[in-house]
């Protein structure tokens, strides 16, 4: 597969770049660079896009919606040539990534000693890009398994110390690059039988790093696995580039390399996609259901084409199992399309797996808008998979926020292309993720119950909801951090925090870090809301700033806010807090909560110092407050 194969090809990228260079206004050049970053590009075009963006990035206009992110790369090989690829892939995701490259090979000094330049840069993300040549574990080939284990453990302990330093000093999320084999095997297939063979040691080290990273909340960058089969085979660990310039990654692979890092950065900032929208005819099965009928479409075992379509469905179903919402958008009659999911024996996807099912003869852009609305997610959370190049093109023009991967002619390659595009990169996987697809499907059942009831109050009571509030501990930390970083709509302040920062607040006895879970008679909605409340320099003793209040849009309209307020005032009173100060910081996405605090009975007050323009502040006295009315039972144990 060509690298970035899922991005559409520009008809003349070189000419477009030359034309864009002549634009006088830096902000307009930046906007053009963002647009061009979404096309398939080699490393020279990627470098040109970065230069196009550069001046505008000094002061990006707010309407471009770029989110800043500071990435420090501490490397034991040359990485400067990879910076444009990272920044341009960031632009493609709406991120303005600034990159600090520590002096070559000085990663220990940068973290263990004082590095004023790094400290001033204050990285949010620290990438430790190490390679097999750096601090190699040099053991005689006859060394025992125990010797190897010991040497590996020592090296991992050293790296864990560096990870800890990065967290303590910068509150940064650490990303550890796994080691890439740069020398050929010594023993061939027998290699793994020899404990001290270089490749065996390397694999053990990588296995130990994976394990330690999981324990320490560190993310991994697995270049060998992610680049395999994409771009030229010598793009990674090319000995010529190594001897010439100590490059582990060839400039040729800079676009894909940058994309891999920007994906992780995007996931850390909650910019990953959430929903896979599927076309039906010739995407999930071969043929056109309206013409060919349920017996005529190609799907399932016994026929190569049918098996290839089944593999697409299975991959989509697996994505559903890891928490990606599945939806259908197809030009078909609803009844005919749904009947395939209900009645075709070979379908791997079932009607219950699809959270939003839209089949009609209207245009797909409009239908995708409807799907986003129905699921309460942004258009920029959608990935649309469609075999038809014309439909793909129209959706890209009409809805630039929706990711629409290019697809190869052969459906057998669809899963690989979709997987390679990395739309669903994540920083964690929790039990809630595994249950999410089910949860969205249950929302359909709730919707049906609502349609049978005459009034909202009795419907909400009939749900038998229980809101469970827990102080954030190890069990809640990953999912709570994930919500903090990906919730855009019901989010009063859109402050983003790393796990380390949330942990620090949860450990502070003067503050409150709450995770809320909602269950009802249809099932568990999972962890749906996070509240962070703390003293603030701008407030008086006995007052808490509600630093963060966010909620999953899955539970909108269920009066969870009032129940949450009851929880919050109860816990605040227990800690001697008599006033809650709520802030609303407007973004392009959170208009739905502009009236949140006034609806809950907060009173407007004067702005706090050092807040972004447009921030509204509200105050709530917990003493003498009237009780909150809501149909939800509370569990505060």
């Amino acid at each position, binding site marked *: 597969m060509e690298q970035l194969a899922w991005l559409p090809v520009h008809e003349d990228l070189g000419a477009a770049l030359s034309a864009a260079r002549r634009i006088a206004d830096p902000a307009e050049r930046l906007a053009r660079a963002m647009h061009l970053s979404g096309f398939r590009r080699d490393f020279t075009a990627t470098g040109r896009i970065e230069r196009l963006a550069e001046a505008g990035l000094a002061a990006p206009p707010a309407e471009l919606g770029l989110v800043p992110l500071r990435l420090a790369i501490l490397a034991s090989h040359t990485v400067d*040539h990879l910076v444009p690829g990272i920044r341009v892939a960031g632009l493609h995701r709406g991120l303005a990534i600034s990159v600090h490259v520590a002096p070559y090979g000085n990663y220990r000094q940068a973290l263990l000693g004082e590095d004023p330049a790094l400290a001033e840069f204050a990285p949010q993300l620290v990438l430790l890009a190490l390679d097999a040549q750096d601090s190699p574990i040099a053991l005689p080939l006859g060394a025992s398994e125990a010797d190897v284990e010991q040497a590996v453990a020592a090296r991992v302990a050293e790296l864990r110390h560096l990870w800890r330093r990065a967290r303590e000093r910068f509150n940064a999320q650490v990303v550890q690059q796994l080691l890439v084999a740069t020398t050929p095997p010594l023993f061939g297939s027998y290699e793994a039988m020899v404990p001290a063979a270089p490749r065996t040691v390397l694999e053990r080290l990588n296995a130990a790093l994976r394990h330690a990273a999981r324990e320490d909340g560190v993310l991994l960058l697995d270049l060998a696995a992610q680049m395999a089969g994409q771009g030229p085979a010598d793009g990674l660990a090319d000995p010529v580039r190594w001897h*010439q310039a100590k490059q582990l990654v060839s400039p*040729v692979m800079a676009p894909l390399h940058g994309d891999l890092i920007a994906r992780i950065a995007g996931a850390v900032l909650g910019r990953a996609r959430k929903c896979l929208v599927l076309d039906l005819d010739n995407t999930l099965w071969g043929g056109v259901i309206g013409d060919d009928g349920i017996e005529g479409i190609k799907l399932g075992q016994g026929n190569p084409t049918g098996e290839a379509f089944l593999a697409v469905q299975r991959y989509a179903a697996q994505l559903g199992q890891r928490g990606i919402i599945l939806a259908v958008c197809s030009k078909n009659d609803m009844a005919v399309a749904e009947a395939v999911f209900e009645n075709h024996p070979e379908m791997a996807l079932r009607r219950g797996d699809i959270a939003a099912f839209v089949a009609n003869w209207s245009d797909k852009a409009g239908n995708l808008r409807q799907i986003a609305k129905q699921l309460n997610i942004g258009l920029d959370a959608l990935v649309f998979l469609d075999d038809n190049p014309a439909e793909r093109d129209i959706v890209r023009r009409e809805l630039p926020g929706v990711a629409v991967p290019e697809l190869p002619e052969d459906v057998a390659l669809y899963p690989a292309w979709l997987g390679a595009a990395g739309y669903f990169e994540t920083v964690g996987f929790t039990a809630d993720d595994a249950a999410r697809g089910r949860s969205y499907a249950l929302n359909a059942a709730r919707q049906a119950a609502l349609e049978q009831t005459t009034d909202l109050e009795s419907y909400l009571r009939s749900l038998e909801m229980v809101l469970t509030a827990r102080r954030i501990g190890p069990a809640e930390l990953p999912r709570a951090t994930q919500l903090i970083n990906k919730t855009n709509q019901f989010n009063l302040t859109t402050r983003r925090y790393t796990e380390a920062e949330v942990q620090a607040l949860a450990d502070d006895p003067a503050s409150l870090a709450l995770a809320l879970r909602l269950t009802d008679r249809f099932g568990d909605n999972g962890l749906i809301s996070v509240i962070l409340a703390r003293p603030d320099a701008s407030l008086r003793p006995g007052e808490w700033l509600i630093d963060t209040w966010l909620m999953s849009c899955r539970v909108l309209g269920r009066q969870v806010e009032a129940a949450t307020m009851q929880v919050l005032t109860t816990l605040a009173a227990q800690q001697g807090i008599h006033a809650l100060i709520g802030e609303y910081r407007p973004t392009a996405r959170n208009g739905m909560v502009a009236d949140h605090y006034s609806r809950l009975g907060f009173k407007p007050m004067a702005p706090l110092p050092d807040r972004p323009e447009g921030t509204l502040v509200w105050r709530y006295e917990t003493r003498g407050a009237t009780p909150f009315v809501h149909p939800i039972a509370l569990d505060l144990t």
Partner: protein
Amino acid sequence: MTEDEIYAALTQVFRDVFDDDDITLSPATTADDIAGWDSQAHVNLVVAAETRFGIRFRTAELESLHNVGDFVQLIATKRKGA
């Protein structure tokens, strides 16, 4: 590919790598003549030329690329051999 064609194609490679549509090349053009032709840009040039002409430079050959004339001669030789 004639030498003129190689010059034309290599000029485009230089213009792309340095993002400068005004670059013109002569055999005597060296790093001193082009702003930004540092060691990192040199690797980029080598790799972009390899991609454009479908060739690979050997490690030893990389040391002999001092000016544009060297580039063109080596590309011509390699393409003839291919």
